[in-house]
């Protein structure tokens, strides 16, 4: 990466609550200047399609190391992150061994250093030992070691009593409990969102109520615990239904210390994709199905669409995007879940859950912006200041992304830095591309910070 002269860009700075025309200059791979433009200099800049924003923060990713390096390594995962515009990534603890004690975090940090990546890696520690839901992990030691939250992600905290204790115990540590809301008694063997598509395809239904009852439980517990214990925080990750979003909206209005995130795939894709449809949630016909709308584009049962929670229907996706717009949703998180092909090139029911999502997040969410479902500023905030607030970190200075919102690119195995090629977008042309990501570095004089480009197309 050498020189880059972006004299006419659209700057979005959610920390300052400002967006507008600007100019930036990169020399020798170093971002030298970012300037707001006004008056005559600024005219016509909003339609250049180039957006500059703070570096994105992903609060929910699976980089698989240690334990599943055939699916992803820290090095490839961080490269994928930079490629997708994420300059900070927070990993989940479902590694092997589980990140339930500081030694595992040290090993991960060793891998980060060895990777040479400048992407910042943060980590959630497990809530319970081995994510088994039985006894609390060493939350205090993990906090001392620097985790930014606690989660048993993928294994919902089944015991309400454990959740209650975890919330209380983590509060004085200043850290949130990040719950994956799912009532497992309703999802035993479940394959796809309960609804017309699952019924017709003969897939075992995964009811919206499985998520919504877990959200209700979590909020009821939170309501009680936060009356006794100051600083309690609950974060609900990858919400997927309109009913969950409504509950969070009401809980926030009532003053509960709750935050939530949604994934790009739950915003953009629907269960109709499992039937073979290939329309984004905001496109006409996306709420229909191949049998009534003639909306079939490809074969059904593509196992790359098997994800937890499942892809929902159009109304749910719309509710999630509307909640990004009104800031009920605090963050957009990728739930990047790379898998080796042997775990995905199998029958739908046998396939591992998850979508490789770091590198396609930007074009997916920009699609929603383009369709008018959420303003650009809200989406950028949900990728930057929102997750920073949840993770309790300052906005990294000098981390920026340059996005060409109009550029089209085709998702191919070679175009993804992630080892996980498991994406339903494979082979599709997407609009919106991260051209440059930079991270902040101390400047040569040591007095301030400049931004160094870490990824460039």
């Amino acid at each position: 990466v050498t020189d880059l002269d972006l004299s006419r860009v659209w700057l979005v700075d959610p920390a300052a609550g400002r967006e507008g025309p600007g100019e930036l200059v990169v020399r020798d791979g170093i971002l030298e200047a970012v300037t707001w433009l006004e008056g005559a200099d600024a005219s016509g800049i909003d339609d250049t399609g180039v957006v500059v924003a703070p570096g994105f923060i992903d609060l929910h990713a699976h980089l698989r190391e240690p334990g599943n390096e055939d699916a992803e390594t820290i090095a490839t995962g961080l490269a994928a992150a930079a490629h997708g515009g994420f300059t900070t990534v927070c990993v989940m603890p479902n590694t092997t061994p589980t990140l339930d004690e500081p030694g595992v975090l040290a090993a991960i940090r060793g891998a980060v250093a060895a990777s040479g990546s400048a992407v910042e890696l943060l980590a959630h520690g497990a809530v319970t030992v081995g994510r088994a839901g039985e006894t609390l992990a060493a939350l205090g030691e993990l906090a001392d070691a620097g985790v930014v939250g606690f989660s048993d992600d993928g294994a919902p905290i089944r015991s309400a009593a454990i959740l209650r204790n975890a919330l209380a115990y983590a509060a004085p540590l200043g850290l949130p409990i990040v719950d994956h809301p799912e009532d497992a008694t309703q999802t035993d063997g479940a394959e796809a969102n309960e609804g017309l598509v699952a019924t017709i395809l003969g897939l075992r239904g995964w009811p919206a109520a499985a998520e919504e009852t877990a959200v209700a439980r979590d909020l009821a517990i939170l309501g009680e615990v936060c009356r006794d214990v100051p600083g309690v925080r609950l974060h609900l990750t990858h919400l997927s239904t309109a009913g969950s979003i409504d509950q969070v909206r009401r809980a926030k209005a009532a003053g509960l210390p709750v935050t939530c995130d949604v994934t790009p795939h739950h915003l953009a894709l629907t269960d109709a994709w499992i039937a073979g449809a290939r329309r984004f949630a905001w496109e006409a016909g996306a709420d229909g199905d191949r049998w009534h709308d003639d909306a079939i584009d490809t074969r059904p049962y593509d196992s790359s669409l098997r994800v937890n929670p499942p892809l929902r229907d159009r109304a749910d996706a719309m509710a999630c995007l509307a909640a990004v717009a009104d800031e009920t949703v605090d963050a957009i998180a990728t739930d990047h879940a790379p898998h080796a092909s042997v775990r995905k090139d199998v029958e739908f029911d046998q396939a591992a859950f998850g979508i490789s999502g770091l590198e396609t997040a930007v074009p997916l969410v920009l699609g929603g912006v383009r369709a008018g479902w959420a303003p650009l500023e809200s989406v950028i905030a949900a990728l930057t200041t929102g997750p920073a607030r949840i993770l309790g970190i300052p906005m990294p200075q000098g981390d920026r992304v340059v996005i060409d919102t109009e550029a089209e690119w085709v998702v191919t195995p070679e175009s993804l830095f992630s080892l996980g090629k498991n994406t339903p977008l494979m082979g599709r042309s997407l609009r919106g591309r991260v051209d440059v990501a930079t991270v902040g570095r101390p400047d040569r004089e040591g007095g301030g910070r400049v931004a160094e480009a870490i990824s460039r197309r």
Partner: protein
Amino acid sequence: VTDVIEGRADTAEVVVPSVDVEPGTQAVGWRHRHLLDVDGLSNADLDLVMRTADAMREVLARPIAKVPALRGRNVTILFYEASTRTRVSFEVAAKNLSADVVNIAASTSSVAKGESLVDTVRTVEALGAQMLVMRHSVSGAPYLAAEVFGGSVLNGGDGWHAHPTQALLDLYTMRSRLGSVEGRKIVILGDVLHSRVARSNIWTLTAAGADLWLCGPATLLRGFEAWAGKGAAAGRRFHVTSSIEDALRDADVVMALRIQRERMASGLLPSLREYAARYGLTAARLATAKPGALVMHPGPMNEGVEIAPDVAAGAQSVITDQVTNGVAIRMALLYLLAGVSPT
């Protein structure tokens, strides 16, 4: 890659093939390479299958029930789920057409050692399979097989999703007794939720214009009310009810579905006894249907549970016809697919 895409257009006219000549040498208007589901079959397709099955019935009535149509073709029957009647029916059908038949039961092959479906399909193809008949417990598995297999895939039942040959033999059986199913009241009774037979029959019977009713305890109809409200496809409505009285009243056909014991363990039903009492097809209940209404069952039956023994063996039962017609239907489908299968 799928028959659903390739097979959209309706065929203008149905030409009944002569089954004594090589498949593919006559223009019969069949364009599906695979038979994975019945949702993409047009009325003309259904008609062609029925007429071809008529021709196969004629073959079955010959002193030597065998034609050379599939001579030299390898039909591999790969079953991942226990089955007697469907597997044997396919085997008999393929042999009647002079195909070379290879039988693979998943429990006795390398599948038990953890080989993936994709690898198994590639292996059987390398061993010479040209047509693959497959049964699998996971919905959608045949679509995965069809993606990697160079020949034709016939779905012999996948999970809860589809059992195309069963629905076609059911339609054939009804048509041979009733003439046409158009406007006829047909009841599918029992465990609809877990039934690929029910799902496939929804497509074929609504396409053929039947007045279709699904009946059972509400726990076993979950999701079907919404589907019925929308219709199987545009304009193809059907009915869903838990009232067996409403369902059976003046019915022309009653098809009982097998109830499995696992349904009690998962809390969907209190007991088999209660099911038999409330939804079992008894002579008294059958009497509320039209006189002479047909009794059907895809098998295997739990006599005394979903169907009373005297009803199963009674004068109105066409259950053994279903079995015989199954061979003719499977011969017809093997023949039609062989005409478009790349070999």
